[in-house]
């Protein structure tokens, strides 16, 4: 064989090898590389939507935070040493961020917590079988920077945004909070975060990108990006200034009257929008784990109570609307206690006012007078009006934990039930239901469902939420008659000394005993005051409620003064001058 032929055969074999290798790289290896690490598929987390007050201030926004994880097989230091470095920064925020403000007991608790954390971290870091182990979530930027300075190989970070509350604990129960679901994803619980969770959470994006061995993107390679969709931002009807005033006054009042808790709701009766909603005691959303879980629930919508005398307004409105009575109708049974179905009904102060007019019945908060009204109404009609006023079903407010209250079925009502319901006992309502019902009277007899979110914003597209169609539940005449009765009750009632001068305020006190195991507790009460102002053109409707006030059990001595104190500030806030 000559040399040329030998060369030709060698060249042919080399070309064949090259072609085969190219074929391998192009097709065979290509198939495998689709599952290879060179194509990096990663999730781009979507930011959760912010929540703004009516003046556009963020009540809830997002803060930079990180997930810390370790690659145990890459660690260059002993697990115990790393745990010792990390533990003081990964304990609960209360202890980690405020070392100067801690007392002795808290310092001891902090040390215990650090010890526990160290043990937990050591256990995780020592497990070399794990490729990846999560150490902590939602760690603040400062902590991340501090850990980075320690230069520990094998400890890495990932973006993990966290909720931030610029106004600290303001409206905490109303806003709710963000926790984790069983898969570790963010999910809203309670209040607005719970109700609007699907809108607020947005949609995570995905990024598929080919990378070189150094992890840098190859621009001529495959590139697939699905942009994350940021969650919807909500604008609330909550007026930050009013909320601030209310929370401050409520806290002082609960402490002053020694109450177990207190609730204040303020709404715009024409729009049904909530201007402020506060509960005390409350919690700090940033440090919620430190607080009792019972505080997470917003009692303004989730707590049911017997409304007591504030409910007299509802029964009287029903009777006036049906023309069963008029403001000048005289009570023919108000001479003394009344016996119905074996039960005795008496007045709260054992004083009796024979031949009282209906306006005087409301003024004296006369239980016997209301029994007279309930007899005129009858079971069917009274029950229908209770339902018409929105009791026994949810108001539809955009808060997750709202309860429906409790109104027994019509066929279970006995004459005594009608009588007691007329002065607000034997029926369970939520504070928001009371505000909705009294708001209807303030709104000329039109009932509007309360709402908090007024605008939703998604991708620069703003959409205003619309109020539900108002339902005329009582006539304008009835609304105006009952308003006058409520004004009279304020001006001549027990709490008249606290009323701001020069303003016409419509309102009604309530003192309800608390039912315990089939009877009423003689010492414990729920004191409340509900009303609106200015009476002729209401700018706000407000409910103040205290559970078990210890300084005085009466609404006129606890809830009413608080109502008028807040109302005074509201007149200033709205620029409503006194008439006289």
């Amino acid at each position, binding site marked *: 064989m000559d040399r040329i032929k030998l060369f030709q055969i060698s060249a042919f074999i080399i070309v064949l090898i090259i072609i085969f290798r190219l074929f391998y790289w192009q097709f065979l290896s290509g198939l495998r590389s689709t599952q290879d690490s060179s194509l990096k598929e990663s999730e781009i987390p979507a930011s959760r939507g912010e929540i703004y007050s009516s003046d556009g*201030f*963020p009540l809830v*926004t*997002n*803060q*930079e935070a990180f997930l810390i994880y370790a690659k145990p097989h890459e660690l260059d230091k002993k697990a115990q040493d790393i745990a010792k470095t990390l533990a003081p920064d990964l304990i609960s925020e209360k202890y980690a961020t405020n070392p100067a403000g801690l007392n002795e007991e808290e310092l001891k608790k902090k040390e215990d917590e650090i010890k526990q954390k160290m043990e937990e971290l050591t256990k995780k870091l020592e497990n070399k079988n794990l490729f990846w182990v999560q150490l902590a979530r939602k760690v603040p*930027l400062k902590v991340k920077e501090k850990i980075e300075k320690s230069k520990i190989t094998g400890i890495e970070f990932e973006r993990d945004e966290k909720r*931030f509350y*610029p*106004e*600290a604990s*303001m409206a905490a129960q109303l806003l709710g909070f963000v926790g984790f679901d069983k898969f570790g994803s963010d999910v809203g619980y309670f209040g607005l975060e719970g109700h609007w969770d699907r809108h607020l959470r947005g949609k995570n994006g995905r990024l598929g990108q080919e990378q*070189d061995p150094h992890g*840098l*993107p*190859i*621009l*001529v390679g495959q590139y697939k990006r699905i942009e994350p969709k940021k969650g919807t931002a909500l604008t609330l009807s909550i007026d*930050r*200034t009013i909320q*601030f005033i209310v929370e401050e006054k409520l806290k002082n009042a609960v402490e002053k009257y020694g109450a177990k808790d207190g609730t204040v709701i303020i709404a715009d009766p024409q729009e049904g929008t909530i201007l402020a909603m506060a509960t005390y005691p409350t919690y700090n959303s940033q440090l919620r784990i430190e607080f009792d879980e019972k505080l997470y629930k917003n009692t303004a919508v989730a707590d049911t109570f017997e409304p007591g005398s504030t409910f007299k307004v509802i029964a009287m409105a029903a009777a006036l609307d049906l023309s069963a009575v008029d403001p000048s109708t005289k009570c023919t049974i108000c001479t003394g206690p009344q016996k119905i179905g074996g039960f005795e009904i008496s007045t709260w102060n054992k004083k009796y006012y024979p031949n009282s007019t209906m306006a005087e019945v409301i003024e004296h908060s006369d239980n016997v007078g209301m029994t007279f009204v309930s007899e005129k109404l009858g079971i069917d009609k009274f029950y229908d009006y209770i339902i018409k006023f929105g009791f026994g079903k949810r108001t539809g407010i955009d808060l997750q934990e709202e309860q429906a209250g409790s109104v027994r079925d019509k066929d279970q009502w006995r004459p005594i039930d009608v009588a007691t319901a007329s002065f607000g006992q034997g029926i369970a309502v939520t504070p928001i239901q009371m505000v909705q019902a009294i708001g209807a009277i303030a709104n000329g007899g039109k009932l509007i469902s309360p709402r908090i979110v007024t605008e939703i914003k998604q991708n620069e597209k703003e959409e205003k939420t619309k109020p539900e169609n108002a339902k005329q539940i009582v006539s304008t005449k009835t609304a105006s008659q009952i308003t006058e009765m409520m004004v009279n009750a304020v001006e001549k009632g027990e709490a008249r000394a606290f009323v701001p001068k020069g303003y016409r305020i419509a309102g009604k006190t309530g003192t309800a005993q608390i039912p315990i195991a089939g009877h009423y507790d003689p010492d414990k009460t729920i004191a409340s005051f509900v009303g609106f102002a200015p009476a002729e053109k209401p700018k706000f409707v407000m409910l103040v409620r205290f559970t078990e006030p210890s300084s005085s059990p009466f609404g006129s001595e606890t809830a009413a003064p608080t109502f008028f104190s807040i109302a005074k500030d509201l007149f*200033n*806030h709205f*620029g409503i*001058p006194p*008439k006289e």
Partner: protein
Amino acid sequence: MLPVSDFKVGKKQDFNFIGKIKVKILVIAAISVVGLFMAQLVFANKLATDGQKLSLIEEEIRNLEAQNLTLKVSIAQESSLVSISKKAQGLGFEKPSQILTPQSLLD
């Protein structure tokens, strides 16, 4: 009738003309192919090395977004009513007992 010699000459001239065009087209095509190939090589090479630049730009965007978020949070915290009221109290401000509005002055 045309002379035979004239016919032959004419045919030969026509063949040369088409041939020249074909050669030119081939040359242009070859240059284009080589040029495009080279351009692709240059651009691909450039793009492949630009991965690092892209990575740096993305990192910069992330940093700026993070700084924006931190600033937004700081502004919100400083302008919160909780913070302002504390500062006001510290400076000796008091709550007004009555607020005068243009309407209240007219009344």
